[in-house]
């Protein structure tokens, strides 16, 4: 499409004016939005000195140990802390081997094959111990279910 020289010159001017107006209007609305935001902004220092309550909280882990003694099982020279009394009792009722397998698998994160290497047994044997131990643990837990 051919344009006349005059038209092209006019478009240049019109475009320049258009861009300037766009920028000016965008700037005005940007100032307005920024000002509106700053009206609601409060300094954190001011907030800290003004609030009557604690503005933050720090979690204390293992705090409940002060009140009740946790049960500690020693497996492979590592201590496993069981906080829940009910679970600890149930675990104590299991046989030595079953408890060790459960603790190693779920608390220390050993794989079944690794546990098998410790006992010189196959992985599937460990898997069987684990399932049997879980079954017994469920029974033990169900015994104390109604006491809670």
């Amino acid at each position, binding site marked *: 499409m051919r*344009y*006349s020289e*005059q*038209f*092209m*010159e*006019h*478009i*240049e*001017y*019109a*475009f*320049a004016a*258009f*861009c*300037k107006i*766009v*920028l*000016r209007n*965008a*700037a005005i609305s*940007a*100032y307005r939005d*920024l000002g509106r935001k700053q009206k609601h902004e409060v300094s954190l220092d001011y907030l800290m000195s003004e609030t009557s309550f604690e503005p933050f909280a720090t979690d204390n882990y293992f705090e409940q140990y002060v009140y009740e003694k946790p049960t500690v099982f020693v497996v492979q020279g590592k201590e496993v802390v069981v906080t829940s009394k009910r679970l600890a009792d149930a675990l104590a009722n299991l046989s030595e081997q079953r408890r060790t397998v459960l603790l190693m698998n779920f608390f220390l994160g050993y794989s079944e094959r690794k546990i098998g290497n410790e006992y010189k047994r196959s992985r599937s044997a460990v898997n069987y111990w684990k399932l049997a131990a879980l079954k017994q643990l469920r029974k033990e837990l169900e015994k104390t279910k109604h006491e809670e």
Partner: protein
Amino acid sequence: MRNKKLIPFETIEKAVAGEPEAIDAVLRHYTARIKYLSTYRGHINDDIQDRLKAQLIKAILQFRFDRYLIKSVFGISLVVYIFI
């Protein structure tokens, strides 16, 4: 005869068509103005600057040639706006 300070017509044509280099050229042409406008409390505010650039790009693509009509009467160009 043409004003050297203005963006050449060819660039405008390409920019409106959405060609990235041409749009970039337009943005570069207005860098100083954008910086001047985005000065807030004595400092250049990056948020405002980005917003202005985005707005300008959006507006460039909406620019239309056919809104404006030139009539030559006695050698003087008159601009008549057509409202669509």
